[in-house]
């Protein structure tokens, strides 16, 4: 179990040591950044292996037992999130090594990148409510700074908007934590769940849930609260865009809300159908509104930002359907969308690196001069649309299957039908940037950037073809961890 504290100790160490030593040897920061993310990737695979056959691993900090001390609770859903984070952080670090040639003060980027990684890892493994808040703030503050990394007017404006919205969500979360602490006198998640069983369905219970859902919806950029994302994600450097869109909003918004809804509040579709219908409604609104808005975008990265909002709607839809297939689809969608959207943002970074242009109408003909980038884009786009055998197909299929089993045939038709809209806006990029002849001079992106993109393409193919083992060893245990509901309490507090 020693890898559990190392998940946060390693990137923290890198973050602190980079400012000290990067002045002595210039490439120190990228080298240690890449080594750290690679080691985290190995640890995440080890974590998936370690969780097989165990419902929960509990790591006690300073050897204090759970309701008193702080713990890491590592179940299959946490292992899955750590796996997704480490994939995208690893490819982003590879990509950033070359991409950052445009920027000054590179060590600051790497320090913030490591802190962001620490925060994401911490959120996915922590078993303590206030620690979760601290990790959320660490990763959020690092991301505000990274969005404004280019310090141009546009980036600063986007970062300010993002910071105001993010902190409104953060303070709402803090208010909810204060209320919970006042009521239950504990901050351990399992202990809170235990206390909530006595006040289930009271007014207090529902108002806390509303506060938390608001905070996490802002972080996840679901539609009524989405307007910061199309500014913030495109303004960041490409590896950060891919990290933010690929995994950041899912850890801060989707993972946290799923953990609270299923494990802490103990809600299921059977005992709270109205609440789950709200989730379906939010998801549907995001899919429809952001999907249609994306069709009219002209900026490469801004279009992908709207696409992210639309795709997060699918994840919420899957959670809202609430039966096994719906939740399994949502969990798989986190992985599928994470990899494919990270890949799409990396291709946008590679186009910006070579041409310095983001407006898709001024680009053209890059399909011949940049074949690796173009084919990476095509694979990512096909996975996002949901074409077999890529991994995106299975995620969408499971969500549709869940909807049909739950008796929402129209929901399955809308969800699958909006793949057509996804196809529409991605074809717009394909046509304008890669196919159309426009005489833009370009050469292929540097080697390391291509390696990062090809790594993600290979993952899309391998995970898609190896769907059966992925389902058995990763997705199904993660879904079971959510569907286990409030048995979570006994797994953490039971052994004491």
């Amino acid at each position: 179990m020693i890898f559990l504290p190392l998940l946060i100790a390693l990137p923290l160490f890198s973050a602190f040591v980079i400012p000290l030593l990067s002045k002595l040897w210039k490439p120190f920061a990228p080298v240690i950044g890449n080594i750290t993310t690679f080691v985290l990737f190995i640890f995440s695979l080890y974590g998936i292996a370690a969780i097989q056959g165990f419902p929960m691993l509990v790591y006690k900090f300073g050897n204090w037992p759970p309701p008193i001390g702080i713990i890491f609770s590592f179940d299959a859903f946490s292992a899955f999130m750590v796996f997704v984070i480490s994939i995208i952080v690893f490819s982003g670090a590879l990509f950033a090594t070359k991409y950052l040639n445009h920027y000054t003060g590179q060590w600051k980027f790497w320090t913030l990148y490591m802190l962001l990684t620490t925060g994401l890892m911490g959120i996915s493994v922590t078993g303590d409510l206030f620690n979760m808040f601290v990790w959320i703030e660490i990763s959020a503050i690092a991301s505000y700074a990274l969005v404004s990394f280019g310090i141009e007017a546009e980036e600063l404006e986007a970062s300010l908007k993002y910071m105001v919205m993010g902190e409104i969500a953060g303070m709402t979360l803090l208010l909810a934590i204060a209320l919970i602490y006042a009521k239950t006198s504990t901050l351990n998640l399992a202990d809170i769940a235990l206390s909530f069983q006595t006040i289930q369905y009271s007014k207090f219970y529902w108002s806390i849930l509303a506060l938390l859902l608001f905070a996490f919806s802002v972080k996840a950029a679901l539609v009524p609260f989405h307007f910061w994302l199309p500014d913030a994600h495109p303004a960041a450097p490409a590896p950060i865009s891919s990290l933010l869109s690929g995994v950041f909003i899912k850890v801060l918004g989707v993972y946290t809300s799923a953990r609270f809804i299923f494990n802490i509040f103990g809600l299921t579709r059977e005992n709270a159908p109205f609440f789950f219908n709200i989730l379906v409604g939010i998801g549907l609104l995001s899919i429809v509104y952001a999907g249609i808005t994306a069709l009219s975008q002209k900026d490469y990265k801004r279009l992908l930002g709207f696409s992210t909002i639309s795709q997060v709607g699918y994840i919420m839809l899957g959670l809202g359907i609430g039966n096994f297939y719906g939740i399994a689809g949502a969990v798989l969608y986190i992985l599928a969308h994470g990899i494919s959207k990270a890949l799409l943002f990396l291709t946008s970074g590679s186009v910006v690196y070579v041409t310095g242009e983001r407006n898709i109408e001024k680009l053209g003909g890059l399909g011949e001069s940049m074949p690796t980038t173009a084919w990476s884009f095509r694979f990512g786009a096909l996975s996002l649309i949901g074409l077999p055998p890529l991994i995106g197909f299975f995620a969408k299929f499971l969500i549709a299957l869940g909807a049909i089993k739950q008796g929402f045939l129209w929901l399955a038709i809308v969800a699958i039908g909006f793949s057509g809209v996804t196809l529409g806006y991605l074809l717009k990029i394909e046509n304008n940037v890669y196919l159309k002849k426009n005489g833009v001079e370009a050469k292929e992106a540097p080697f390391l950037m291509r390696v990062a993109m090809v790594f993600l393409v290979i993952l899309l193919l391998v995970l898609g073809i190896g769907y059966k083992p992925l389902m058995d060893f990763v997705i199904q245990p993660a879904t079971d961890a959510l569907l286990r509901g409030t048995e979570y309490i006994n797994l953490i507090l039971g052994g004491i």
Partner: protein
Amino acid sequence: MGGMSLIVRRITEIVCGFIFMYGLYIILHGHLTPGGGFAGGVIIAGSLILRVLAFGSGTESERMLSKRIPKLMSVGLLIFWGAAFTGLLMAGIFFLNAPIFGLGTPFHLLSAGLIPICNIGIGINVAAGLFSIFLAFAAVKYFMEE
């Protein structure tokens, strides 16, 4: 930017060192008396801020210090991280309070395991961090007046 009047500067010269020393006292006795790394760090940052207020920003000593702030913060955080990691090395438990000086004898400076070392790390980090926040505000005001 110009500083304040001669009286203020003179008093600052006398008082500043004592405030700094008081901050060190609070940090080092964090495990015995009220206070600790954060409170002591704030007091140390206060003494540095007082100097900048009295003598004006842009002095040679201030520039020397502000250049080293990122490194100072890293050192403070690495001390804290090292204290946490010692537990992992000694017993496989992160943040274990390893009994290097024994675990807590009242009124003894060298006691309470790794807590004093954690306090020193926090103190360095908080002092450097708060001072850098103040310098950032001072720099913004300076640019606005330009």
